[in-house]
């Protein structure tokens, strides 16, 4: 089973990562539709009203219409999205089966040689510090992980319910960026 890199800096939720690239295309298309005809879903003016305004619009009004075209999509539009839309477009759903997926995470806690890495799921994972480039695995380092399970929980003999370890299971693949590296660059 080959791991595949999930699109858009993968599993880190927060739509900020999704705003670039693919998202911009969708935004432009929807923006044009808003400007031209009217989008019934967002309560934009109906076709009758827009034809009435375009008939008597001046240059100033036209300019105003296209003023915000180059500005990035604001948080207001995101706020009005329903839960279903957010869920449907989330990496959690798009990822599918988490086994074997390569995701990006951040080291948020270090205890000795154990790295606690948060990759955007419900739980964090704990990985041992690798022997190669070990000095770079510090707090705040961004790392690449191969996921095995989102939650380590299983049913044991005689139990009625699953027992959960409250942790995810992932293998550390390598460093993406590290504060150690950037610090070294600054000093040299």
């Amino acid at each position: 089973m080959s791991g595949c890199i999930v699109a858009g800096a993968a599993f880190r939720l927060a739509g900020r990562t999704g705003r670039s690239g693919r998202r911009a295309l969708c935004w432009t298309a929807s923006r044009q539709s808003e400007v031209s005809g009217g989008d019934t879903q967002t309560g934009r003016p109906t076709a009758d009203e827009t034809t009435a305004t375009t008939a008597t619009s001046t240059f100033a009004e036209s300019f105003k219409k296209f003023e915000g075209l180059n500005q990035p999509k604001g948080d207001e539009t995101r706020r009005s999205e329903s839960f279903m839309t957010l869920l449907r477009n989330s990496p959690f759903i798009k990822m599918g089966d988490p086994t074997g997926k390569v995701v990006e995470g951040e080291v948020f806690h270090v205890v000795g040689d154990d790295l606690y890495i948060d990759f955007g799921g419900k739980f964090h994972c704990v990985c041992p510090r690798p022997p190669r480039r070990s000095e770079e695995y510090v707090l705040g380092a961004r790392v690449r992980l191969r996921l095995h399970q989102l939650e380590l929980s299983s049913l044991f003999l005689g139990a009625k319910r699953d027992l959960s370890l409250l942790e995810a299971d992932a293998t550390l693949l390598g460093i993406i960026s590290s504060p150690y590296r950037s610090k070294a660059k600054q000093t040299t």
Partner: protein
Amino acid sequence: MSLYRSAVRLLPACLRVTSRRALVTSSARTKDHDLHLPTPAGPLGTWATLKPRPEKYVDTEADIDPSVTDPLRHPDYFGVRELFTMSDLFDARVHLGHREGSLNPYMAEFLLGSRLGHCVFDLERTAQLLRDALNFTAHIAYRGGIIMFVCRSPQHVHMVERTAMECGEFSHCRHWPPGVFTDSTALFGGVTRLPDLLVLLNTLDTVLEQHGAVKHAAKMLIPTVGVVDSNCDPRLVTYPVPGNDDSTTAVRLYCKLFSEAIRRGKAEREKSAVV
């Protein structure tokens, strides 16, 4: 029950339950696979619903009538509806639940469904219940009540204790001795004023046991606001808020929201100098 069936039908492809092999298969598991709904684990092994709550939810669409001055009659006196949005809940990973294998039957009604074995909460329902909980918290603070935060997740204890301290309220995030509420006079050596509200950010003590505070607060008629995850029992919690209680982002959001609600209640109390 019908609500669940329609909710699952909305996204049939992605919310289908896949048959999952357990280390030991129990007879209770094999029942609901053909319905494509997560099978609650435990002795019931079937769906169960809580009794419907009689009071109305904090209505987000209700127009505020300026003539309504009584805080108790106001639909949202402290404006808790504007404290959070759906995106805030989603970004904080509130919708992520545990696996189906640890699903409590009484939590099944709060789920949207399950995604490849992982439960997903219905955030529309969570948002309603969270607004109610915040509204209630703000009202308790407005009336000068003592609020106590409880959290047993070791990584969040410090955050919760600091939150409680910053909003001028109390917390108990350590081991819960048996007689704290029920035998308080003996334990503390005198007549003790008990909290007027308990805010539980974890209703479980360990993964297997419910926190003693839930039962004891119910015995002493102390209302509780509790974040209930998919493996928790919501029956004794007065204002359950179904959502993720394990992720740090979610707990941070809850701390922020509850402390803001308390602050608003206290500010209003000082402003109006009520009894």
